[in-house]
C-alpha cells in the first residue's frame, strides 16, 4: 500500500499539529473498495426499490380509494372496495399479543442463559434458541393449527366467561363450537414463539457484555445474584433489550404463514381477541393472492406498502436504539 506523508511542518512554526497521513491504495485496492462499498449500499438500493415499486404498483388503489383505503373496514372483491381500516389494527393487535407473551419469556430466558446457566448448559441453550429461530414459521403454523388450537379453546372460553369485565375478552357473537377457533389471541400466541428466539439472542448478547468489574463490585458490596442482575446487568442492557423487543415486534407484524394457517379471515376490525375472526396485512396478501385480478393486485401492493412502511419504521428505530445504547457496538467504555 503506497503511503504518502504530507511534509512535516517546519519546527519553527511552534504549533504541534499532527501530520495527516494520506494513504493512496493501488488501482486494485480502489476497485476492490468501491465494489465492497457498492455491496454495502445495495441494502439501501433494495429498500429503495421496495418502496418505489410498491408505490408504483399500489398507486392505482391508493388513488381510487384515497385516504379511505386506510379507514374503510372491508375488502370486497367485486366493485373494488378496498380498505385496510380493520386489517391494519388487527395486525397490530396480533403483534401486541405476541409481544406481551413473548418478550417477558425471552428476556427471562436471556438472563438465565447469560447469568445462571453453567458452561455446558449455556452452550446447549444457545443452540436451542438458534434452532428455535431456524425452525420455519410454517412448522409453527401447522403445529398451532392442529395441536395448540384444539387445546386452547377451553381456556379461551373460560377467559371469556369469567373475565369479560375486561372489554377485549368479551365475545359479541352467539356461543357456538367455532366461537373461539381462529382468534387473534391464538394467532398471537403462536407468533410469540417466533418472537422469543430473536429477542432472546439479542438480549443475551447485550447482557453478556455487562462489565465484569461492576458485577464483582456489586458482589463485593454483599449483593445476591439477583441483586447484582437487577442493579448491574439489567440497567446496562436496557437499551439493547428495548431494541431487541422492537425488532421482535417488527417480526411479529410481518409474520405471514402462521397467521394465515390459524386465523379465520375477516376484514372488519375484531378487537375482541378471544373471538373467531380477524386478519393481518401479510396473511391477507398471501391468502387472496392467487385469486386476485389486476385491481386487487394493486390494492394488495398498497397494503404491502403500508406493512413495509410500518415495519421499516419500527425496525429502524429498534436498530438505532441498539446502536445508541451503552451496550451498542459503537461505544466502548
Amino acid at each position, binding site marked *: 500500500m503506497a503511503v504518502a506523508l504530507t511534509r512535516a511542518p517546519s519546527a519553527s512554526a511552534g504549533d504541534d499539529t499532527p501530520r495527516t497521513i494520506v494513504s493512496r*491504495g493501488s488501482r*486494485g*485496492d480502489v476497485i*476492490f*473498495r468501491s465494489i*465492497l*462499498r457498492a*455491496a*454495502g449500499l445495495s*441494502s*439501501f438500493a*433494495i429498500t429503495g426499490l*421496495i418502496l418505489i*415499486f410498491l408505490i408504483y*404498483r399500489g398507486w392505482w388503489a391508493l388513488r381510487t380509494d384515497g385516504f379511505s383505503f386506510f379507514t374503510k373496514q372491508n375488502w370486497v372483491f367485486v366493485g373494488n372496495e378496498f380498505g385496510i381500516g380493520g386489517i391494519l389494527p388487527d395486525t397490530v393487535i396480533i403483534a401486541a399479543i405476541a409481544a406481551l407473551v413473548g418478550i417477558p*419469556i425471552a*428476556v*427471562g*430466558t436471556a438472563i*438465565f442463559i447469560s*447469568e*445462571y*446457566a453453567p458452561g455446558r448448559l449455556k452452550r446447549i441453550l444457545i443452540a*436451542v434458541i438458534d434452532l*428455535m429461530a431456524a*425452525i*420455519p414459521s*410454517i*412448522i409453527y403454523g401447522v*403445529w398451532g393449527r*392442529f395441536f*395448540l388450537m384444539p*387445546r*386452547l379453546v*377451553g*381456556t379461551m372460553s*373460560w377467559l371469556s366467561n369469567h373475565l369479560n369485565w375486561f372489554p377485549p375478552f368479551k365475545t359479541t357473537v352467539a356461543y357456538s363450537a367455532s366461537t373461539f377457533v381462529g382468534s387473534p389471541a391464538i394467532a398471537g400466541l403462536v407468533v410469540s*414463539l417466533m418472537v*422469543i428466539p*430473536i429477542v432472546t439472542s439479542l438480549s443475551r448478547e447485550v447482557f453478556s457484555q455487562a462489565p465484569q468489574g461492576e458485577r464483582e463490585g456489586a458482589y463485593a458490596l454483599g449483593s*445476591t*445474584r*439477583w441483586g447484582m442482575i437487577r442493579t448491574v446487568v439489567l440497567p446496562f442492557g436496557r437499551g439493547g433489550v428495548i431494541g431487541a423487543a422492537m425488532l421482535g415486534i417488527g*417480526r411479529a*407484524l*410481518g409474520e*405471514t*404463514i402462521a397467521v394465515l*394457517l390459524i386465523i379465520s379471515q375477516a376484514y372488519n376490525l375484531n378487537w375482541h381477541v378471544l373471538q373467531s375472526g380477524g386478519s393481518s396485512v*401479510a396473511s391477507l*396478501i398471501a391468502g387472496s*393472492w392467487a385469486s386476485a385480478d389486476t385491481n386487487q393486485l394493486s390494492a394488495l*401492493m398498497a397494503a404491502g406498502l403500508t406493512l*413495509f412502511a410500518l*415495519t421499516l419504521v419500527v*425496525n429502524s428505530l429498534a*436498530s*438505532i436504539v441498539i*446502536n445508541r445504547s451503552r451496550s451498542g457496538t*459503537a461505544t466502548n467504555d
Partner: protein
Amino acid sequence: MITADRDSGLQPLPDLSGSQDKPLRIRRLTPEDWLSIGGAAVGSLGITWVLYEQVLPFSGGFGFWVCWYLVFLLLYLAVAGLQWSKLVVRDKFMAVLVSSGGIFASAVVIEQIGYSVLKGLPAIRHLNFWTQTMAFAAPLSPLSTGGVLHAAVGSLEQIAIATVLAVPLGMMAALFLTEVGGPMERPVRTIINAMTALPSIVAGLLVYALAVLTLGLPESGFAAALAISVVMLPTVTRASEVVLQVVPGTLREASFALGGSHWRTVWKVILPTARSGLTTAVVLAMARGIGETAPVLLTAGYTNEMNFNAFHGWQATLPTFIINSILVYGQSPKYVARGLGAGLALMLVVLALFSIARVVGGKAPGELTRRQRRRLQRESART
C-alpha cells in the same frame, strides 16, 4: 467452630482443618433447594388437579399447565419464605422464574420436532413419498401413491440459486462494514439490522412488482429464488460480520507489513481465517431460506407436476406443498397427512443444515482441524 447461619440459606462452610484444600462451590443447589422446588412442583400439581379437574369448571390441557405453573410459583414462594430471609427468597425465586424460561424454550423446540416426527411418519414411511410427484394422485388417493419429489426438487433448485445470489453480495456487504467503513458504515448497519426483520412477504411483493410485472420475468422458480435471496441477504451479512470482526487485527497488520495490498489481504488472510464461521453463516441463511413460504407462494405459484426448469413455469417447494395440502385440499385427511409428511421432510432438512452449521462453526477463527494442522506441518517441513 463455624456454624451455619440458619437465615442465610447458604451452605455451611466446610471444616477447614482437613489436609486438602478443596475449592468451595458456592452456586451448587443444596438438598434443601431441590426439596423446595420438587415439593412445590408436586404439591401444586395436586392442588391444580383437584381444583381444575374436580372443583372448578375449567377445561383444556393448555390452561391446566398455565394454572399449574402459577400455583407452583406461589407455593415455592411460600416454602422458601418459611426457610430463608427475604433477600434470599427473592434471589432464589427469581432464579426459578428465570430458569423456567430456558426450560420453556427447550420444551417448545422438542415439542416442534416431536410433533413433526409423530404426524409426519404415516406419510413419510411410504417409499413413494420420496420418489413420486402428485401428478397422478387424486386428493383422495391413499398414501401409497403420490409424493413430494417435485416439491423437493423445487426447494433444492431455488435454495441453490438463492444462495449463489445472496452469499457473495451479503459477504461483500459484511466486508464493507468491517474492512472499509467510513461515514456510510452506520447507516448501512442500521438498514441491514432493520432488513433482518423485514416481512418476507414484502420480498415476494418486490420481486413480483419489479421482475414479473415490470421486467416481464415469468412466475417461476427463479423469481422465487430472487425473493428468497432478498430474505437471506441480511442474515448472511449479519452473521458474517460477527465472524469477520473477531479476526485478529495482528494478522491483517502482518499481511500489510509484508506488502500485501488490501484486497489480497482480504482474499488470502481474512477470509481463510474466518472460513469456518463464514460457512456457518451461509448454512444458517440456507436454513432460513428453505423454510420461506410466503415469497415463494407469490412468485412461483404451485403445481402438482415435476418441473426441473427453474426459469420457466410454476414450481412447487416443500413449504408451498404443505400450505396447499392444508388450505386447498384440507378437506381430505389423506392430503393433510401428506402435508404433515412434507413438514417432517422440511424439518429434517433444516435440522441437517443446522447440525452442519454447528459442526463446522464450533471453531474460533484461525483454529485448524487436525488434518489442516498436519498439512501445514508437512508443508513447513518441506521447506
